[in-house]
């Protein structure tokens, strides 16, 4: 039963009103499942899911990535740092 720590930034942080969440997921859960759960538990996040990318341990990971207990998952909306 992986429990994962989820980090929110930028617009997601504003919408959800939190910087961090904890999600309990079933064994064998992937990033794909985490995204579904997020959409269910936080409907405000739903419109963001199409362009949202996730990072685990500070690396971008695909939807099939398997989550382990204690993982640190960052939700990365389209980035806009850098310069004009």
């Amino acid at each position, binding site marked *: 039963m992986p429990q994962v720590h989820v*980090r929110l930034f930028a*617009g997601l942080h504003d919408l959800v009103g939190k910087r961090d969440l904890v999600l309990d997921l079933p064994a064998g859960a992937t990033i794909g499942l985490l995204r579904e759960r997020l959409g269910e538990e936080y409907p405000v996040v739903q419109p963001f899911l199409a*362009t949202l990318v996730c990072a685990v341990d500070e690396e971008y*990971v695909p939807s099939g990535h398997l989550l382990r207990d204690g993982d640190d998952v960052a939700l990365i*909306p*389209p*980035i*806009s*740092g*850098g310069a004009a």
Partner: protein
Amino acid sequence: MFAITREPLDPMPLVESVRRDECGAVVLFYGVVRNENRGRSVRYLEYDAYEPMALKKLRAVADEVRAKFPVTGVGVLHRIGRLEVGETSLLVAVSAGHRREAFEACHYAVDRIKETVPIWKKEVWEDGSEWIEGHVPEVPGAG
């Protein structure tokens, strides 16, 4: 030298950190807060970042630049938090033996920072604000 910081950026130590006795050229890029974007007047910007990952990705961009161009040094500073018009959000310094490589490598580094580093910008206008959606980062192994 690589940093994500809330303090104003100081270009001089960054340039000194990339200069080598065998380099003939240094190119320093400043990303600056403009007073206008897409037809709207900007009051100020607010930058958010996933700081440890952003720092790691800045270093990864530098590794990519060093693998691709014959440069002698690369350094990047990115400021976050609230920035006023005219303030510098990004500094990228590249040194090389000759000017062509320094220009090309620095331009490439700025492009890659925009594509890969988890930093977000909110534009604040007189009558509202918006988090700007830019690049969806590439995910290794994704379809």
